């Protein structure tokens, strides 16, 4: 009896580790494989999928830089994503504060509208957006994508922020008002500093979602001025149809920055994603 339970404990442990190792490999395997392959020559890639590169050669990266302005796409991404993070955080910081503190007529309407759009599929509204943007003259511009991304971030950020503000006691504000502070002073000097952790959560969430966004970037751009990094891959797929080796380099360059950021900011990223999922 004792013996058999010891055996079952050990075998359970083995199964557990096989499970953990299997899924870690499945998750990282394709990326590691692409990374190794990106240093192989065209001939080496074609001769064997599982060999090591004969030397650490960077021609694929050179080709990737040559055929598409990937540095420009990267800069576009930084500008578009950076601005949209700022806009979303600023707008949501204001709007959520009002919702969390005051009662007014339109409040339920606002909450209802925002929660309705939380689950809205992006594709469903893309054609009208395309038409509206063309009319406004912001199709295929960075400003256009910034507007969409900022709005896209509102629903989830809104709920994360509203629930964060509710954890901040109103006592401080009350005494500030009694001391004669104005609304703006109170908001700026008392509330915002206290709300910083919530704002960081929202900013990270917005960063991840927009940095990886593909569909709107595909629908709302047509040239190099506003193409972002994920959409650059689409371009590479077309251009490098026959030059796979450069495609390996391109995909590695798209993926690595994200992985680095994730590993460095791991704890915060996981917390943000969890908050976004649970509160939104």
């Amino acid at each position, binding site marked *: 009896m004792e013996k058999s339970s010891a055996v079952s404990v050990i075998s359970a442990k083995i199964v557990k580790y096989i499970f953990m190792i299997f899924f*870690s490999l499945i*998750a990282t395997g394709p990326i590691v494989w692409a990374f190794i392959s990106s240093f192989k020559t065209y001939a080496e890639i074609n001769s064997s999928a599982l060999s090591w590169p004969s030397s650490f050669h960077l021609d694929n990266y050179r080709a990737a830089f040559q055929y598409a302005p990937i540095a420009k796409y990267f800069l576009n991404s930084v500008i578009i994503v950076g601005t949209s993070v700022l806009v979303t955080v600023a707008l949501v910081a204001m709007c959520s504060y009002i919702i969390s503190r005051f009662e007014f007529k339109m409040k339920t309407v606002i909450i209802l509208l925002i929660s309705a759009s939380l689950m809205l*599929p992006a594709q469903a509204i893309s*054609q009208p957006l395309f038409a509206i943007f063309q009319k406004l003259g912001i199709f295929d511009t960075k400003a256009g994508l910034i507007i969409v991304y900022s709005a896209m971030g509102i629903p989830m950020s*809104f709920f994360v922020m509203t629930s964060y503000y509710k954890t901040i006691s109103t006592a401080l504000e009350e005494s500030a008002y009694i001391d004669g502070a104005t*609304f703006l002073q109170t908001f700026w000097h008392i509330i915002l500093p206290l709300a910083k952790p919530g704002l960081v959560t929202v900013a990270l969430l917005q960063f991840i979602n927009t940095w990886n966004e593909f569909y709107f970037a595909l629908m709302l751009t047509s040239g190099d001025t506003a193409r972002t*990094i994920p959409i650059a891959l689409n371009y590479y797929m077309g251009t490098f149809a026959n030059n796979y080796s450069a495609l390996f380099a391109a995909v590695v360059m*798209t993926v690595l920055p994200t992985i680095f950021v994730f590993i460095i900011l791991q704890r915060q990223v996981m917390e943000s994603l*969890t908050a976004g999922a649970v509160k939104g």
Partner: protein
Amino acid sequence: MKVKNKGVWIVLFTTPCMILFAIVYAAPIVTVLYTSFCKYTTFSRPEFSGIKNFAQILGDKDFLVSIKNTLIWVLLQSTFHVTLGLVMALVLRRKPKGWKIVRTAYMIPNIIPTAATGVMFTLLLNPSFGVVKPFLETLGIHTDQVPNLFGNSKYAFWTVTVTWMLYSGFNTIIFLAEMGAIDKEIYEAARVDGARPWQVDRYITLPLMRNIFGTCVTLASVAMVSQFDIIYMTTKGGPGNTTLNLPIYLYKAATLENNYGKANAVGVVQIVIGLILVLAIQRLFMEREEGRRKK
């Protein structure tokens, strides 16, 4: 709270948010609803045409296939995929050696651009230089015709499915966070009473995961109703219509056929399906959650 000019501040602080909202959400939704009942192409203005668009798509076999595929993916993702994330969380919950590395590694596919995932799998499974050939050879299968997993209608659907179904790291961290919030005293009491580890999980951890499981299922379903990037990068809905889903069908109607009326009718269907799913899932999982959500 007594605030001077309260009304003014309410308006000033909420209006910017609402304007952006109106441009990007409200106006397009109204347009989608209206133009789905119109004859409307790239070259013509919307003109009311009744339910013609809906009649057209309902009579199109590809559309029915894309609804079927979308629903199959929703079903698989909200059962197998979410459960996989839960199982991983149960394994990692007790912090076995290396659990942090596994958690990070498993999360990586969920953090990189989905378009990149698509490209990577296209390369990985390429019949001439991908890993399929060496894999088959290790199994002792030598063949001149290495199967093209994305290009062959026999395999394409399941190949595409695998590119997202196994990657449940996002759900894992959500479950782990929820498990971390469970009162330690409950576990302590169970241990004192002599409960075995699997009994603890079965009778304490799992029942407490009900609500968050519902949240994960909701998110997974919504993601599948709008799944686009990976399919677009790998098969574009093909070969034939084997991997077609609503977003790809809509995209094709709008960009290849230039038929905006039809695209927006599909959009209406997509919104309605998403809505029904979300409401049904909430019903299923969150009956007794009323008080909790308001917190």
